[in-house]
């Protein structure tokens, strides 16, 4: 009887904890680890693989922006990949609806359509982003990155910066 009671309490606690954790990570904050060097030097700022640190950067993602879907130039966002819904990518917004963007390869100028945004990695040489897949719907965005929380020597705020050459016209 005692063990049954104990197991019941344990599973009840796990269930409650899971519910609360899931709610908080859906609506308020979550922590994700950034893989790959497409956002270097903002995240994973190692230049080549030989200097690769042991851990990837962990970042804090806030979900409050999903209530209104209001974003600004330079926001770093987490979004669901349009080509594979199981993958999540971290990139910086460089264009919002109505902006004119110059396509890098053929010197065409594209207008970002309504409800979409233009995302690019900070490390433009090694980034798979809007330059190859085009503008992405804002509805795919799953949160905004605000802070780096791990490793300890890189803890800090992620700034809403945008390099001059990438500014839309």
């Amino acid at each position: 009887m005692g063990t049954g009671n104990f197991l019941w309490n344990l599973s009840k606690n796990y269930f409650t904890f899971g519910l609360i954790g899931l709610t908080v990570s859906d609506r308020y904050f979550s922590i994700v680890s950034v893989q790959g060097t497409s956002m270097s030097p903002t995240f994973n700022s190692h230049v080549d693989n030989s200097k690769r640190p042991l851990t990837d950067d962990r970042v804090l993602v806030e979900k409050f922006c999903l209530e209104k879907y209001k974003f600004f130039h330079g926001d770093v966002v987490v979004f669901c990949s349009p080509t594979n819904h199981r993958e999540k990518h971290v990139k910086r917004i460089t264009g919002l609806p109505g902006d004119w963007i110059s396509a890098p390869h053929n010197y065409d100028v594209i207008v970002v359509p309504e409800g979409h945004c233009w995302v690019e990695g900070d490390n433009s040489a090694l980034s798979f982003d809007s330059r190859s897949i085009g503008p992405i719907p804002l509805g795919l965005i799953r949160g905004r990155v605000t802070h780096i929380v791990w490793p300890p020597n890189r803890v800090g705020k992620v700034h809403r910066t945008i390099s001059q050459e990438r500014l839309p016209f």
Partner: protein
Amino acid sequence: MRNLLHRISELKSAAKEAVSKSLLFAKFLCLLHVTDTYLCSPIIVYGPSMLPTLNMAGDVLLAEHLSPLLGKVGPGDVVLVRSPENPRKSITKRVLGMEGDSVTFLPDPANSDRSLTIRVPKGHVWIQGDNIYASRDSRQLGPIPYGLIEGKVFWRVWPPRDFGTLG
């Protein structure tokens, strides 16, 4: 002095009860959120785009959110999709093609019989309203990323004469 101690202990127990009550309430809200986002939620749909399957004025439907998460959405399903044009809005349409499928459609059915065939790219789906004359869907917006699918409609609650699965 004893009176004061008594008052303090009374206050203490009251505070304890308030905390436990609000904790219970918070847990309830969490449960509500999780059922709403991961299991099933009611939606109200308006508009002519899904006639004759869904009525024009305010059908209440139940949408489940497990199938999109598990990748079990297939052609013929009525799905709830976050609009690619306005992320604050959701639209209800029918899936006609998954990634890799060839879809043939009439881009302008009211004025011509011209048809087009395209291949749905990787990770996308082709959605269309049942009423092709009054629907804004993949024919104008192009294929939709799978990540925008939020739920699969499986049950109609209102109006009562159509209560049941979607025909």
